[in-house]
């Protein structure tokens, strides 16, 4: 494949961003999925709505909200910048944040479904054996949802690879710095004669996305088998 250095940089940046976005999402997604699946409390549906908002909002809106909150002068971005010297807007770390936010609902959904498939009576039985709740979660719930977690991670990874709207709004489209595969495709399509590059990137990202879906499907099937004790 005769991609230019800039395009290759976009591919590697996309992989890097997706990797970190998935990793950052994971602990929060498990926590939120557990709370949504197992706890009843005032504001349950509000939390659910907030988690799912990036799925239904136009991505450009999410990107704009991020820019307002996490921009250098924004309420959160200002603190990060002044206190810790961390800047997110127009940096690759900002692309991680944007991709993480967009991928979060998908990961939560997959893990929540897996947790809901675990019979809470098993957790209750474990507590009658003198095991504290956190350890019940670690030894009963977590092993039974491993495939669900993996499925959620793969979906999140694929979503992060393809994120465009929020990313380009929050961190722009700077070649070699914040240009991911989708923004590279977009840039290539703006210039006559770059269709071939665009096409290669399109095929590459299609392969990653479809491959992720197939693996995630196969893993989900394993959850039900595992819960049936086979």
């Amino acid at each position, binding site marked *: 494949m005769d991609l230019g250095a800039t395009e290759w940089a976009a591919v590697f940046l996309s992989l890097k961003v997706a990797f970190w976005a998935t990793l950052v999402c994971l602990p929060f997604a498990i926590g939120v999925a557990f709370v949504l699946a197992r706890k009843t409390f005032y504001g349950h549906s509000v939390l659910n709505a907030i988690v799912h908002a990036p799925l239904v909002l136009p991505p450009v809106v999410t990107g704009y909200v991020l820019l307002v909150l996490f921009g250098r002068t924004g309420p959160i971005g200002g603190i990060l910048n002044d206190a810790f010297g961390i800047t997110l807007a127009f940096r690759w770390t900002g692309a991680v944040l944007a991709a993480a936010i967009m991928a979060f609902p998908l990961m939560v959904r997959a893990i929540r479904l897996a947790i809901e498939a675990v*019979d809470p*009576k*098993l957790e*209750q*039985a*474990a*507590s*009658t*054996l*003198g*095991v*504290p*709740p956190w*350890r*019940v979660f670690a*030894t*009963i719930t977590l*092993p*039974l949802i491993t495939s669900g977690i993996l499925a959620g991670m793969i979906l999140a990874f694929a979503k992060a690879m393809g994120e465009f709207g929020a990313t380009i709004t929050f961190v722009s489209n700077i070649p070699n710095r914040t240009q991911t595969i989708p923004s590279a495709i977009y840039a290539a399509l703006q210039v006559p004669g770059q269709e071939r590059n665009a096409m290669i990137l399109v095929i590459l990202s299609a392969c990653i996305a479809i491959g992720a879906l197939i693996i995630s499907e196969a893993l989900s099937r394993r959850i039900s088998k*595992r*819960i*049936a*004790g*086979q």
Partner: protein
Amino acid sequence: MSVSISIRHSWPTFSLAADLTMPMGITAIFGRSGSGKTSLINAVAGIFTPDEGRIDIGGAVVLDTKNGINRPTHRRDIGYVFQDARLFPHMSVQENLRYAARHGRAQSNAAREDEIITLLGIDGLLNRRIATLSGGEKQRVTIGRALLSDPKILLMDEPLSALDAPRKAEIMPYLERIRHAVDIPILYVSHSISEVARLAHHMVVLDQGRVIAAGPTQSILSDPALVPILGVRSAGASIVARISAHDSDGLTQLSTSAGVIYVPQLSGEIGHSVRVRILAQDVTIALSRPHDISALNILPTVITDIRIGDGPGAIVSLRSGDDTILSRITRRSVTQLGLTTGMSCYAVVKSVSVGPSDIG
């Protein structure tokens, strides 16, 4: 070590109020569905918190609503055998048995583990996956898992009700063995009189959220006042007998305080005590000793009580030696024979079922 339970709780259409003390051995909580027995056992386990209550398990107060004590389930030192086995599907049988020692309160103890595994006959299952076990095997593993968590009390919520009759018969002997092998109180919830009669030393009868009777199983089962609650068909006495001889024609002689009873050959040695269950519907009454009759078991008795039911039936209590047996006959027979309290008569016993006993 003893356990005392005192709870009050109100639901919109139902209320539960129970005070009871459990001695060692098996105490059965008997009641129809909806009588509050599962709520009672769940209150002990900490799965359900009553409005008011105090629960003391062997000196440890696990619930005291007046003083704001309410220990969570994992800090109550209870073992719980659920109706549905609830074995962990991602672990082998052995991993299930060792779960409490690895992650919970129990100390790992190889000798104890071997003892329980042998007791329950599950040595051949240790490496099996849970999904490959039969219902009866699952229940035995669950009992082992609960016992290996070193509980101070064992709670069993209808452990046999999900099983068919052959499986129940398969597990029953193991439950009888546990009764001897463990030195903790066992709370056994059941709606089956035959299970209770065979297993429990003590029983508590719950009806609509109230304790209406509590005491030794023998005296509860032969209390005519409780017949409507226990069910007419399962009413009957449970008395202790001793094997006195094995006859050559295939019968075993049992001596009771009332006299000799013959039953089909038993395997026990002479001198062993057994529990004899005589259902009220299997006992008829004769005013004089019948001679030309096929029934072998005819006991001289004195009528101590006659209770006329709402329907055509009546329950007659018969004192026979130190024991009381019940007879269910028709009201018409009571009138025709002129039965009254204090009269002497003969109880003709058509059939007897026998279970092992650790009493006496």
